[in-house]
């Protein structure tokens, strides 16, 4: 069955049992996420950082300072390295970034000797719970990691995201490669990439999904718009996964859904051996919890 709401996602995560969640250098934001996931019964936090400081934060958060596993690390960078090492040794199942820089976290994940990258490319999968139009989970890729993705990076990001959707129960997710128009022109290079990616799908070079592009956003998510424009292609206004041209597009689209449409989101970095979560300070509690749930369901 396809998971179409975040409540279903959380139920699915619960079925996996409590997963060990390493928090790299916890601060209020990440600790909050970890405690929510603990309360919901999906995670057992492993807090990586300075033990006294962590206990202090737990007390401030109204939690039992001795109830959680703590691994010692003196600095944010060290905490990232420790968290990744725990993941590599299968001692934790999910990594959650705390008070480290995102770059520090990714650096530890990508480290050639000690890192845990498995795909060619790390990409962010952001899910939005569409509670208005189609009552489904819509992915935007990539609004967080790939700044100006090359053709090859876009293809890898699609593969990463399609794997997540398979875990969410979508047998053949529909992927729309977005641009501002649905025609192909060298004046907008992303339309050319979209055409190439679509041919790659036609040739079986991208599997387990359906791809069409270039598509403008309306043709990707509205059957009516797709029909009016004669784009009865394989996606036909029913996209599950939206591949945006660059990080600006992804960021604007994602935040528009959050702020204008009021959709809840969840974010996970895909492409490492374990899910990596990079929460934003502005995330609300539900987003924090659902990101952990997404990480768990996407991998386990």
């Amino acid at each position, binding site marked *: 069955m396809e998971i179409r709401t975040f409540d279903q996602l959380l139920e699915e995560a619960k079925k996996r049992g409590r997963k060990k969640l390493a928090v790299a250098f916890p601060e209020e934001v990440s600790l909050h996420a970890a405690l929510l996931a603990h309360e919901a019964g999906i995670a057992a936090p492993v807090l990586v950082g300075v033990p006294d400081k962590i206990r202090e934060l737990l007390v401030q958060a109204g939690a039992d300072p001795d109830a959680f596993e703590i691994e010692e690390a003196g600095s944010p960078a060290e905490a990232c390295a420790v968290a990744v090492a725990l993941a590599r040794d299968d001692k934790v199942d999910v990594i959650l970034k705390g008070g480290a820089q995102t770059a520090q976290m990714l650096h530890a994940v990508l480290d050639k000797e000690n890192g845990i990258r498995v795909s060619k490319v790390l990409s962010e999968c952001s899910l939005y719970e569409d509670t208005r139009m189609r009552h489904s989970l819509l992915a935007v890729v990539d609004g967080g990691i790939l700044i100006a993705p090359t053709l090859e990076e876009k293809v890898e990001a699609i593969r990463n995201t399609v794997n997540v959707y398979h875990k969410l129960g979508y047998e053949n997710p529909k992927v729309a490669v977005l641009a501002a128009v649905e*025609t192909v022109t060298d004046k907008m290079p992303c339309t050319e990439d979209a055409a190439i990616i679509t041919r790659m799908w036609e040739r079986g070079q991208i599997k387990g999904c359906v791809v069409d592009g270039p598509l403008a956003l309306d043709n990707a998510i509205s059957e009516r718009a797709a029909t009016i424009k*004669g784009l009865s292609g394989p996606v036909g206004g029913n996209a599950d996964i939206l591949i945006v041209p660059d990080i600006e597009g992804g960021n604007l689209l994602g935040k528009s859904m959050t702020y204008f449409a009021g959709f809840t989101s969840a974010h996970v970095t895909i492409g490492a051996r374990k899910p990596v979560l990079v929460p934003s300070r502005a995330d609300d509690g539900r987003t924090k919890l659902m990101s952990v749930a997404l990480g768990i369901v996407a991998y386990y």
Partner: protein
Amino acid sequence: MGPMTHLSDIAAAVKGLPHKRMAVAYGEDAHTLQAVQRAVREGIVDAVVVGSAAKIAEVASASDVDTSLFEIMDVQGELPSVKAAVKLVRDGSAHMLMKGLAHTDNYMRGILDKQNGLLPEGGLLSHVAVFEAPNYPRLIIVSDVAVVPLPSLQDKVRITKLTVGIVHSLRIDVPKVAFLSASESVLKFASSQEAAVLAGMAVRKQFGAIIGEGPISIDCALFPDACQVKGFMGRIQGDADIIIVPNIESGNVFYKVLCRFGSGEVAAMVTGTTAPCILASRGDSEDSKFYSIALGALNA
């Protein structure tokens, strides 16, 4: 009437139309005069041969050509003859141009001349070749095998449009267009990716009513059994009408191999000009010259 399948169909179609007038640039050689004689005798065109009247008369009598079949415009010298012939076409007193003894460079220079030539401003000069191969069920139309050496993607877009225009005159209403590369997979080199982009444009109907496919190799473009063996499921199944070659080298090799090994016959003309221009060379067979004139007349 269905699509033309033989070069003789072109000649037959022209015979039913009002005669077009052909200006022959520097027609002072036997090959050219014989080709003109045949075309006039078979009712394909009327002709005006530009060059030294004395020389033309001398060559004609030595090679059994009846000068009463065509008009002679007495002009001395190669460049002035080319210029005068081009002018006849520009002024509308001739409908098409044919190269005689003039060097290709000088002939092209006359066509390309900014003030007095036959290329619209900003236009692309290209070339189309129509092949008839023995025991093959269709005409094979190939571009560009002769004029644009290293076509950019934008050039290929224009080459495709020009070729589709010519193909309509062959009563092929919805041509199947193969954007050629070395494989059906989308690979990292330019011809493969450009073919994917062009196919994407075709899917989005940016070339009007055509069925486009690419990247595709020549076997899957022209032979259904190759598609079966390869399991290729594309929009073209060995039934391409038009082959858009990746560059002039591969196109030229295809052209000459087909003529020599495959005993193919060809009709060819320059495209992109305000009137058809025939670019036959001494190496072309008599039939080939005749059919090229017919192709020009059909499109004049």
